[in-house]
């Protein structure tokens, strides 16, 4: 059966708006890809901590997202960034009862404390370890229901962000200067984890999206991005290509204008231009290199934003496309509790304004 879904999903992909954008073709309107993770739990009136551990609710949440948002692709993942780290042994903090806080790796629950720990790192088995099997199961169920409607992608943590979770963010940043060779070893390990998990997703018939926001120039210098992150990222994307996926999105948040060259060198054909990044530069360089990019609108004030302001923000974003066919309309991470009406408003603007 997975093979059938895979074929169906592949056929659908051929006609999707997202595929058109990736291949530089215009569609009836630009693709709509809001970043929905913890908000998935809101759609089923539950909390992120509950839904991310319950395959039934998780699946329902994705189906609800499809109904409510009508995006041009779905992403399997609520507390993205935690899953791989947890599967190799890091401790994740979950919240009880109605607490809507979002699970994250416990800073005291990392698994790498010093050089001697490198030998203890072991690759996870995606069929067994942590919540990897749960995510793959949800992917299967969602594909079974929606595989012929839209592309479904699994969230995969990029090498640098995974290393940050295994080591602790600041500890890793320090090591880039004091122990660069060790950081490279750690990144080789993270790369192997990401390959395993990506392969497992591809096997069930999904695409993948790589997230690596901790390598953003908000934190890491462009020179360090080149020294440490570019190579393993490239290798991950080459590997995913070798599995038969042509289109690999790489999502790095924040203002990534300063690493745009390296970002494109990773081989990702679909990248993120966050709201703080220079959209002109992205459009220029993406059109020269034949890539698609998702432009985000800011979501920080989504809980209180008025309808008029939301419409104005969306129109401004659409204008920034200047008709570039590789332009994808996106949002920053949608805060938990965002009124569901926002999505209809955005869709309407796209429908009326972005043809």
């Amino acid at each position, binding site marked *: 059966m997975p093979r059938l879904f895979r074929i169906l999903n592949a056929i659908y992909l051929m006609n999707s708006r997202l595929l058109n954008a990736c291949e530089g073709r215009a569609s009836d309107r630009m693709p709509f890809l809001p970043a929905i993770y913890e908000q998935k739990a809101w759609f089923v009136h539950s909390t992120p901590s509950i839904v991310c551990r319950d395959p039934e609710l998780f699946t329902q949440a994705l189906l609800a997202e499809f109904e409510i948002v009508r995006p041009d692709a779905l992403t399997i993942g609520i507390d993205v960034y935690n899953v791989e780290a947890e599967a190799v042994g890091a401790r994740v903090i979950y919240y009880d009862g109605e*607490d809507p*806080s*979002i699970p994250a*790796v416990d800073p005291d629950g990392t698994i790498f404390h010093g050089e001697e720990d490198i030998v203890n790192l072991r690759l996870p088995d995606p069929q067994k370890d942590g919540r990897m099997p749960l995510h793959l199961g949800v992917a299967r169920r969602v594909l079974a229901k929606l595989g012929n409607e839209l592309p479904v992608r699994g969230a995969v943590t990029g090498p640098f962000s995974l290393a940050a979770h295994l080591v602790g963010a*600041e500890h890793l940043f320090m090591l880039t200067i004091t122990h660069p060779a060790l950081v490279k070893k750690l990144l080789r390990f993270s790369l192997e984890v990401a390959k395993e998990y990506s392969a497992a997703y591809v096997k069930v018939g999904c695409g993948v999206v790589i997230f690596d926001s901790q390598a953003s120039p908000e934190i890491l210098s462009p020179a360090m991005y080149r020294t440490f992150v570019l190579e393993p990222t490239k290798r991950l994307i080459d590997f995913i290509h070798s599995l038969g996926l042509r289109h690999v999105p790489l999502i790095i948040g924040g203002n990534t204008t300063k690493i745009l060259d390296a970002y494109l060198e990773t081989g990702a054909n679909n990248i993120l231009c966050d709201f703080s990044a220079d959209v002109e530069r992205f459009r220029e360089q993406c059109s020269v290199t034949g890539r698609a990019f998702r432009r985000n609108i800011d979501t920080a004030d989504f809980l209180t934003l008025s309808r008029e302001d939301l419409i104005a923000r969306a129109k401004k974003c659409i204008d920034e496309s200047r008709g570039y066919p590789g332009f994808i309309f996106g949002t920053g991470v949608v805060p938990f*509790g965002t009124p569901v009406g926002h999505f209809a408003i955005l869709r309407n603007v796209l429908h009326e304004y972005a043809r």
Partner: protein
Amino acid sequence: MRELQDLADALINGYADRVSKLTNELLETGVEPQTILNEGLIAGMTVVGEKMRTGEMYLPEVLQSASAMHASLKLLKPHLVKEGVESRGKILMGTVKGDMHDIGKNLVGIMLQGAGFELVDLGLNVPPQKFVEAIGMHQPAVVGLSAMLTTTMLNMKTTIEAINNAGLRSKVKIIIGGAPVSQKFADDIGADGYARDAVKAVDKVKELLAA
């Protein structure tokens, strides 16, 4: 003084061992600890702040400088205490409940220490009650709250309310920061100040304490 400039330079370059060695040498030659602090460490960290702002230094480099600063502060502290040199003021910092982002908050803490303030860091995911207890225990002049999520910034309000209810609001100035918050939000929830980044946070704290 050339040696103080060397100390500042070593700090900017993040050479912890050299910073410790220079600190010891300066102390041995009888330079006042307060002078070492002001003209070595604080001068150096001010440059670090500038370089961060202009994009010449990024987090990994800043963390190296911070670790060099801490090495020197450890050596200076007993001397500062002995001579009755007071810190510029005590700051209590924490990331509010439900929020696991601490990179920005830590950077603010580093720059505040680099400007001569004493820091008590409560870490991340800090419930309102813990802030209240820590205010009672440490009696800070300023409380700094950090939040990076649209949802957790609402917990800043809850935290300020808890401080209020404990009757401690008039004893501290409260400053907030983090990507989703703004001056307007600070005004709305009754904070005394807001700053966009670590360098501005230092200016804001100085301003609040001067008022």
